[in-house]
Structure formats: C-alpha cells, structure tokens
C-alpha cells in the first residue's frame, strides 16, 4: 500500500496533534494520490511521525483549516491521527523499484520490511523497582542517578528498612563527595591520563582482532591515528551485523559476503594476451573463484557492460576470449588494463569480507577489510543499527557528528582496553567532545584544535611560530590572555584551579 510522505516543521506537527481530527491544507498537488496513511519528516532523511489519513481532496477555502503556508495551497488532507514513532530512515520506503533517498517537499512510497514502533519514552522503560528507589532517594533528600538506582534496587530487598535508610544516606554523602571541584583543569588531567599510558603501549602495528585473517592497527599508532583524525585510517575495517531474520541463515549470509567483496577480474582469473590473434583470454582460477564465490556467469555479466569488445565464451576450455572490435595494439593494451580492474561484483573499498559464526547465538557476523559505510548500510539484509566501522571520518560524513563523537570514544576506549590500560572513560569522553564540538571532526594538533586557539601567543608557542606572529600583525589580532600558555608566557598566574578564584582580603576596619 502506498503511503504519503512529506516534509514539515515541528510546530505544524504539534498543532496537528492538538487538533486531530482536522483538515490540513498543504501547498502540494495531491490529485492522483490515494493514501490512507502518511509519514512526516522534519529532516528529509528520516520519518518521525505516522499519520492516519481519512481522505485527500482539492483545496478549497474553509474555516477550520490548518494552513501549512499562507499562499499557494493546493490540497487538503483530512488527518485522523498523528503518532510519534521511532524514527525510520527514508530508505525504508520504495517507489517502484527504487529506494527513496530524500524527501524535499512530498513523495509517495511503499514501506518495506520494518515494523512501526511507537516512540518509547525513556522513563517508561524503567523498572518499577528502580523508580521506587528514585522515590526513596527523593525522600532522603537527593536525586539519585539512574545507573546508581538500578544497582541499589538489587540490594534493597535484602536489607532491613533501617539499614536501607542508612545505605541511602551514605550514597547521598558519597555522591556529594565525589563531585568534581569547580575550576578543576579537567583538560590537562584528561591529556595526561591518555598521554601517560602511551609510553606503556606497544608499537606493534598489527594484531588480530576477532578474526585471525584480519589485521587491524592497534596500540600507540592507532591512538595517534584517532587523535590525528586521519582522513583514511591505515586499516579500515567493518563489523557488519545482519537483521535478526537473516543472521542465522548461512545462504543469505554468504550471499551478502558475495555482494560485499569488491572482486575484480584479476582477483579470480589470469588474463593472457595473444598478440597474434589480437585477443585477450580470461582464464578463471577455480580455487580463487570458489574462494570468492564467483562463477563464470558473473564474469560474463560484468563483461557485458564493457563497450567496444566482443566476447566469446568457451565452455570446454573454461576460458573467455575477448576481442576488441577495433584492431590495434593500443586498443588491445587499453582493454587489457581495463579488464584487470573490472569490478565483477561488490562494493568499492571493501577488499575482503569474511563471515564468522558465533557459536553461542549461532548468528553470523561479517568482518571486512576496507570500509564503505554508506553503501553497506544500503543493503537490505544489513542491520544498520548495529553495523560498525572504525573509520571515524566516514562515520561523521554518513551518520553525523554525534555518531562520530561516539566513534572516537569507542575506538579510543577499545584501543586502550586492548592494551590492558585502565583509563577513566570521562577522559576519553572529553577528548571526543573536544574533537567534535565544533560540528566537524577536528584533529588534536596544529591543523585542528591547537591551530584554532584564540590566543596568538599560545599558537605561536605551539608550532609554526612565525606564521602566527606575522599574521597577528596585519590582522591586528588582540590576545585576551585568557588561556594557560599565554599567561605563562607573560608571567602571570593562570586562570585555572586556584588561579581562577579572585579573592581579595580587605582587612578589618579600623
């Protein structure tokens, strides 16, 4: 069944919600559309609201209308109900054979696969026991963090009421005591806490992670790579999870692997050039073909797309002969080069994909060498909510800056944990936040955070001294002397910690 999708603002939606059932006048023409349900997107990329539609009619003036715009109105939608849903990507909708990629104003499409779920409210997911603890804590006189409350609820039933009360009181005292002091130089502490264990890490670049066939950069080089925010990590790799309905089916999994792996002709076959006949012969290498799950027909399919050649398949000899239509050595050479890198199948960037079964859950997971998040997420079988790549910049461009922040945090935590080094997660969070709070992933160093400091002196003291000083001259920059480095340079107390407090003793009045 076809649904109507359109883009709208949050204010309109809340207005609609208040007044359903109602008539909604919109500025697009819905003459040929017959839909019983609709979806509203506010960001063009995912739908956040589900709408039940009674009827769609041509626009005519009426009293009780809600107007989307003041002018250019064309249709009226009779809305029965508006519901908050767990956001669904637009790509879950299809128009004919194609997936929708963006909704500019409105569109129609069929929803595939995924069930609709009402957006859950966080508080409702909480256990009643935890809620009780929160209430108990309120009575004692403090707000208890939910993670703490959850743990407390486990102890509650074993305790006598008197003990329980004392217990809560002690938690309150502990919470108050454990807070961070105002003006604490948390940045320096974070930097030291990550830098100091750096001296204890190994330099060994390669290591096995999960699958022994895959190499992943770990240890100090990887940590440096993360804080450098490199465009391309030295060993990009993905961990691909499949949707629950597919993850236990070996056939589907292997099919996904086949779809993923970027295989070129040279990967599975030899190309022999016959200069006398002016032909090229593709001789498939059977073990390699089997390894990569390629069949002769796949090669034939790929060759079909190449222009300017005639293809003869020789079943008996198991070879494919290619002859350029134009007879010249130059052309022959060109075709040979073209064939070598001809993609038979797969997603660009994914060099290898290997499926592994988890013996406990019997679910398959696909590990890849090389990363292409955007295209992998497009695959129908892939569970986009769990699939992971270690390429932070790619995460930022595909999923956005918040996702990149989490990626920096997870990758750095994983790198440190793998080396057996304990570093508080708060330090890593701060690094991730600092690298991303500007809206793009910024490196730690002169090209990123340090190069963007407001102080001329601080920048000059870090790297490329003269460039910053000369530029400060003609720009007429003003150094407000608010940071640490610049105050050290001019010989003043810094503005952190005890230096942040301005306390003047006036003395007793005489």
């Amino acid at each position: 069944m076809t649904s109507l999708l359109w883009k709208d603002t949050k204010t309109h939606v809340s207005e609609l919600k208040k007044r359903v059932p109602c008539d909604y006048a919109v500025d697009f023409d819905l003459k040929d559309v017959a839909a019983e349900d609709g979806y509203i997107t506010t960001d063009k990329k995912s739908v956040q609201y589900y709408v039940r539609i009674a009827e769609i009619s041509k626009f005519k003036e009426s009293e009780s209308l809600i107007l989307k715009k003041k002018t250019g109105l064309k249709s009226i939608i009779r809305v029965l109900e508006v519901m908050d849903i767990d956001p669904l990507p637009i790509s879950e909708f299809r128009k004919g054979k194609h997936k929708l990629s963006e909704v500019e104003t409105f569109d129609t499409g069929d929803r595939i696969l995924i069930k609709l779920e009402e957006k859950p409210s966080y508080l409702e997911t909480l256990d009643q026991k935890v809620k009780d603890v929160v209430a108990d804590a309120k009575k004692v006189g403090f707000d208890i963090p939910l993670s703490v409350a959850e743990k407390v609820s486990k102890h509650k039933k074993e305790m006598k009421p008197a003990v329980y009360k004392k217990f809560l009181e002690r938690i309150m005292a502990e919470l108050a005591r454990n807070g961070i002091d105002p003006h604490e130089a948390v940045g320096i502490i974070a930097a030291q806490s990550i830098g100091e264990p750096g001296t204890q890490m190994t330099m060994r670049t390669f290591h096995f992670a999960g699958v022994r066939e895959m190499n992943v950069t770990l240890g100090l080089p990887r940590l440096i790579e993360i804080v450098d925010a490199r465009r391309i990590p030295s060993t990009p790799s993905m961990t691909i999870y499949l949707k629950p309905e597919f993850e236990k089916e070996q056939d589907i999994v292997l099919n996904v692997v086949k779809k993923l792996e970027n295989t070129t002709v040279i990967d599975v076959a030899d190309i022999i050039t016959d200069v006398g006949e002016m032909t090229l012969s593709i001789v498939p290498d059977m073990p390699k073909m089997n390894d990569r799950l390629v069949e002769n027909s796949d090669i034939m399919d790929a060759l079909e797309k190449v222009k300017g050649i005639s293809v003869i398949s020789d079943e008996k000899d198991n070879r494919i002969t290619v002859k350029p239509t134009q007879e010249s050595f130059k052309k022959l050479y060109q075709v040979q080069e073209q064939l070598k890198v001809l993609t038979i199948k797969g997603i660009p960037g994914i060099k290898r994909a290997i499926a592994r079964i988890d013996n406990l859950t019997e679910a398959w997971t696909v590990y890849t060498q090389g990363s292409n998040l955007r295209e992998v997420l497009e695959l129908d079988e892939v569970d986009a909510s769990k699939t992971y790549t270690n390429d932070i910049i790619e995460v930022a461009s595909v999923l956005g800056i918040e996702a990149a922040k989490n990626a920096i945090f997870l990758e750095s935590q994983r790198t440190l944990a793998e080396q057996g080094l304990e570093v508080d997660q708060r330090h890593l969070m701060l690094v991730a936040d600092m690298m991303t709070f500007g809206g793009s992933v910024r490196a730690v160093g002169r090209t990123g955070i340090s190069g963007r400091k407001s102080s001329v002196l601080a920048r000059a003291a870090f790297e490329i001294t003269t460039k910053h000083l000369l530029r400060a001259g003609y720009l007429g920059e003003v150094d407000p002397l608010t940071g640490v480095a610049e105050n050290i340079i001019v010989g003043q107390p810094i503005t952190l910690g005890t230096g942040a407090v301005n306390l003047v003793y006036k003395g007793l009045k005489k």
Partner: protein
Amino acid sequence: MTTGISKRIYRIQFGLLAPEEVRKMSQVKVITADTYDDDGYPIERGLMDLHMGVIEPGLKCTTCGGKVDECPGHFGHIELAMPVVHVGFIKEVKTFLDSTCKSCGRIKLTDDEIKTYRERMSAYNLSSSDPEVIGIMSKKMTDEAGQRMVCPHCDTQQSKIILDKPTTFREEGIKVTPKEIRERLERIPDDDLVFFGFNHEVARPEWMILTVLPVPPINVRPSITLETGERSEDDLTHKLVDIIRISQRLRESRDNGSPQLIIEDLWDLLQFHVTTYFDNQTAGIPPARHRSGRALKTLVQRLKGKEGRFRSNLSGKRVNFSARTVISPEPFLSINEVGVPEKAARELTVPVIVNIFNLDSVRELVARGPEPRDEFDKYLAGVNYIIRPDGRRVKISTQNAAENAERVEVGWTVERQLNEGDIVLFNRQPSLHRMSMMGHTVRILSGQTFRFNLAVCTPYNADFDGDEMNLHILQKEEARAEARIIMKVQEQIMSPRFGGPIIGGIHDHITSMFLLTHGNPRFTEEETIHIMSYIDVDSLPEPHSENGRKYYHGRDIFSTILPDGLNTKFSSKLCSGAKEKCEYEDDPADKEVFIVDGKMRHGTIDESAIGPFSGEIINKIYRKYGAVETSRFIDRMTRLAVGLISLRGFTTGIMDYDIPENAVSRIEEISLDAIDRINKLIDTYKKGQLQPAPGRSVEETLEIEILSVTGIARDESGKIASSYLGLSNPSVIMARSGARAKMLNISEVAGMVGQQSVRGGRLNRGFYGRTLPHFQIGDIGAEARGFVKSSYKSGLNPLEYFMHSIGGREGLVDTAVRTSRSGYMQRRLINAFEDLKVDEKKQVQDTVGAVIQFKYGEDGVDPTRSENGETVDVDYLAFDTELEVEE
C-alpha cells in the same frame, strides 16, 4: 616587597610597525657600521651606541641613565637607502599586487561586489575572529579580484605579476622594484583593506616594504669578550653591520649616479641581507654564514622551535631555589617525606618576612650564622642572606652574624636555610602526569642523595639505578599552602587516570605481607616483638597459646596496622580466578580476603590488597578515612614489611629453579616433539599439501601454524617446570604474590625460552634466504628461525643466544621509537586541552566560553574520586553499611 593586588596584563594588541613609529621609538639613528673604537668604547651612532642600552658594568645608558641590570634597552633605527620587501609578508604583497589596480589602487571588484562582500566581512571582527576563517574568506575575494584583467573603477588594463621566489616580483618579465611596489601599495585606500584581512587601524600594506629598519637594543644582542680579550659580536649585530654597509654603498652609488646595473646589484644585495636578517632559512636563498662557516641565527631562528625563545625561555624557565641529585631509598621515611642532604639544605633557602611577632626568633636565627649545629652536632637551619627593605642583600658569615642579627628590623626579609618540616616540591622527569611533581616535607639527612619511601617510586616511575630528581623550594606562603593542601603525596594517592591508588607497596613489601598472612603463620613472642618494633604500636595483638608457649598469628599482626572499623571483602591475586576452593590455600575461606572492623579474618595479603594500581585495602581506607589515615597505613605497612622480611630473610638464587632429572628430560621431549611437528608441517608445505587459511597465503598459514606449535611447546614446558616449583620457592612467591616477575619468566629460566620473534613473526631476515650462514639457504626449520629450546638455566648455545639477542633488540628499538612518538602525542594533547576547565555548574568550558560538555563526564564526578570509574561503589556501600549497622 609588593603587597596587595598585583597588576595584571589585560590584553595584548598586535600590529605592524609603521616607519614613522620606528623613527619615533628610536633613540638613535645608526649610521656607522662599526661597533667599538680602539679603546673598546662604543662608537657614537654606531651599532653599540650607548643610547641603545649598556652591557658593560660601569657604563651608564645615555637614554635612561640606568646601569647594566637597570636599563631595559632602547631601540635605534637604520634608514635604508632604498626600500626592500619584508620576507615574512611576500605572500601578502603578492595578493595586493594581484588584486588591486595598478593605476588607481582600488581592489578590482565592482561596486556591487564590494557592497555585498563588505556586508559579509562586517560580521567578523578582524582582531578577535578566527584568523583561519578570515583567511579563507579574504582569499575568495582576492582571488576573484585577481582574475580581473581590467579595473572596474578606472578601466585600466592590468597585467600579470609573477613572483620570482623568494623576493623578486616581475610584471611581464620586467622587474618591479620595491620602490614601485611601495608606491602602488600606498595608493590602496583604507576602505579596501578589509577584503585582504588587513586591519587598517594597525596595518598599512606599504609598511610591508621596509624603508627604515629598527635596531634592537644592545642587551638583545650582547657581545661577548673572550679570555683573549677579543670581542665577539652577536649574530644579529653582524647582520646589522652588513645591512648598514650595503645601505651606505647603495646610497653613495645612487647619489653619484652610478650605472643602473651597479645600483640594482647593490639593491639586490641589500634585499638579501635584510631578508636573512629576518629569516636565515628562507627557501631559495643561501643562508648567511659566519666566518667559521656556521649559519647565522637571526630573528626567526631565535623564536622558532624547541630551542627557540617561545618554547625554551617563555613557556618554561630556569629557576633558582632548586636542587638536583641522585636518589636512593629510605624505608624509614614516611611517604610524605623526602630526605635532603645537608649540603643541599645549606644552600636552599626560604624567605622569612620579619614582622613584630617573629622579630625575636628571626634575630636569634640570624645570630646563628650560616652553619649552625646543635650540641649533638646535628644540623640546624642558619641564614645565608638578609634582604633590606631597599632590596640590598647582605651575606651572612660566621663573623658578621651577631652584628647583623641586631640590625634586622620589621619589614626585612631573611633567607633562612631549609628546615625539617618545610614543604618542598619533588619531581622526576619525564613529568608525564601530575603525580610526577608532588609536595614532600623535608627531613635533613647526612649523605649526598635525596631519599624517599619506596612506595612513592610508582608515581614518579623512579628506580635507583642512578636516577636523579629535582627539588624546588617554595618561596611564597600561597604556594606553600597549595602544596600542603593539594600537592602533598598523601593527597595524590588516588590517580585521576583510573580512580584507584597509584601509591602502594612494591617488591619486598608485597613479598613480606604475603609471608605474614599466607596460611596465617605463627610467630613467637620474641619474633613478634622484633617485627612490631618497626611500627609505632604500644601493645601486641591478642596472643594464642599451645602447650604453654605463647604465639601470635600473622594476620593479627597485620590487623594492628588496619584502622578500626574497616570492612572489606575481595579476592587476592593469588586466588583470582579460583572458583570454589583456591588451590594455594588450605582453608577454602581463604579464597577471599575478609576484613571486619579492622580485623583481618581470612585470605592472603598480596598485590591486589596493597599494591599500586590494584591495592584494594589502600583504596578502601582512602575512601573511608581520608588521606592522612591512608598515608599512615602505607607508612606502617612498609615498615612492618621491612620488619618481617629482615627478620625472616628472603632471597632467590639459581637453585630455586632446580627441577628433577625426569622433568628436564620431559621438557626436552617436548622441544624435540615440537621441532618434529614443525618439520612435518614444512614437509606438507613443501609437498604443496598445506591448506591455506581463508584470506591467507600458504606461506602465512605455515608461519601461523608453526608459531602456535612453538607457543604450545613453551607453555607445556612451563607447566611441567612450575609443577615442581611450589609456593615454598621464593621466585614463585614473588611471581604469585605479584611482587616481581611473572610465572612466564620462571618457566623461561627453568623450562624453555621458546620462539624468538620480530614483528610478531619468526626471525627471517639476515642473509639471502637464511638468518645466518650456519644454515642451508631456504632452511625454514625451527632452529634456523629462532626457536630456543634451552632454558636460561641450562644456558643457550651460541646460535640460540644470537637469536635471542635479535628478539631483545626489537624491544629496545621499540622503546626508543615509542618514547618520542608518545611524547609528541602528549604534547599535542596537552596543548589542545590545557585551557579546559569545569565551572561551578560542572560545565566544561574553554577560554572563549564555548561549552564542551554540559556536565563533566555526564555525571559530574571527579575521576580521581570515582570508584574505578563508577559514580559510587554501591556494592561496597551496601556491604559496609550492613556490617556497620550490625554492630
């Protein structure tokens, strides 16, 4: 002495120097290229003119009348015969020439464009916005203007300007002289400057073409007198001499009407000298050299890099009141103390400001002189200097002490020698975290070294193989207060990195505590008294008796140092991973350390109880009783440990690794078997029957298989060896208790060393197709690829020894590379994060006020105080509360 509120620099404005300004701030126009005359007196209007300051004692500055340390120095100036381009601004000059009209001087943008762009630029404040952003915006506009070949304002046809690096501009092949450039730049109206990112209030483009050069004060470029009496001038002075000389010749040639060619050559030479005066590493210009062939260090070189002014003299400075010497251990000191040698204590002083309350005691102190001792010949603090209110220092000697003591009045400052109890900062480099510099209280000791408690080795990462450390004496009351409250060792017991203790017992402390508590051994009264005499207790624990003989339990002795009311339960390192019953403990209850109300009931004290990083008891005491009690516990624990281990004795030797004949032969079998299996694998490989693992070549698969075979062989032999070495073996005690080494090391000594590796693979480099000429080319067998089947005890054969050295070398290289790489990473991290702070609302902000996090770490908890990262340790609190209420 300054009192009250001190002044604070509010901001610094940068700008370009206008020629007029240079002349205005100049005290003398320098016209002579010479420095001193024959008598060694500065030549007037020369480069060492006394108007620019003095460097020789006895002379006075003509400008301010100050003597050497009083005169701050003054600028002079040189009038250049012809203008030259400033190297630092070549790019900007090029942009101006490209984007402005050569005849009317306007930017080559139409009026409409100017209007829209001006609007866009007005959103930015040139002096405070991000210079990168302004740079990008202005580049877009100037590029657009630069493309235009006809001026939209005066319709003049424009021509392309080419920059002939480094400093020559050409227009259609003809050189544009700096003079012409300057004239063009002068025509640009102030209003158009904003599009170039120029702030017309502080900078004009023509100022980038120099007509007058400031001469830095003499104390910026002091000359040195060598022992021979010969004077040696500073590099800058040399450069300035060159500039003046060429400028003069150029002026003369120009005035004489010399041929254009000669003038141009001289002009180029002047440009070269001025260029190298600024930056002697300009690309495309040979660096100016000293007579000796050394490249001169000119202005840019003075500022740049690690040894430059910024990083070497401004961000970090040399300090007085500090000492450095070798360190050595002293178990009888508290962790809060540092032993300072007398010699150092006599030199290091603390300023005491005399007031009406301390006047008498200070006079007495001064009267002692500089080297007082008490009647037992023990060190007493004396006084080295007294400082009068006018800042004059008077040296105190034994002779003048008494008379000077009388002179001391309120308001004077007395520099008192170091005393016991003074708080000082103690530091070991590299200072990687804040625990690398902590506050200690002073103990004056004889000897030549700094000494401290061994528990403090971990935060400093110190050992005693020749390490040196630094000591700094605090000079202000505020600093001493902060050091006492924030920096003192006891305040730093918890590491902010992971929220656990970083100070705790090491090596012998752990061994000794293990011996004291494992199996709860008995000690006679005499032994107990000996052990306990090391700590400050008045009574022995509750005695037990058997057959009329009194004895004491080890755990009871340990309990005496635990604070009352301490409850905790955790599993010891020895029993970590044990499920129901620990194989090393007779009593199943001993699987866990169990302490109730400061009495130890079960378990064994080892690394996980008192060690740094893991020390559970230290952790719990700190949380419940605070810093003072924890430092007392560590002090007493370390002393108790010394008490026991010096009574009992503890040593290890090669016979600790003796294993029976049959074990040796079994290990040999294992190694032969491993070699056999490797050979078989190689055979299969050579026959081409080896199945490659997916995604791997056959060779790689073979290597992986062989590595796993050798790994198994080493583990097996280790198991056999350690099965004969029980907990009565000192080496095993050390390994199992976490005091030092791992079981792996023991199996290397007693069992087999195993496969050596480089970069995670077997050794494979060296000669063509083989590691050493002792092997056949193409031999990939066990021995040829670094399998060491001997043990350290049996000794390695020469080949094995060589292979082992290769493996060991990798570790050394690794360390060397790692330190530099991680050092740079940390420098970058610190630089990027140094300005962040938490405000009263627990928000994380940077200096501009941008919010990085709305609540620090999402829960606002200090990682130092968190329980290994947890907000609060709920499980322990539940356990502890229940026990407390029960009582």
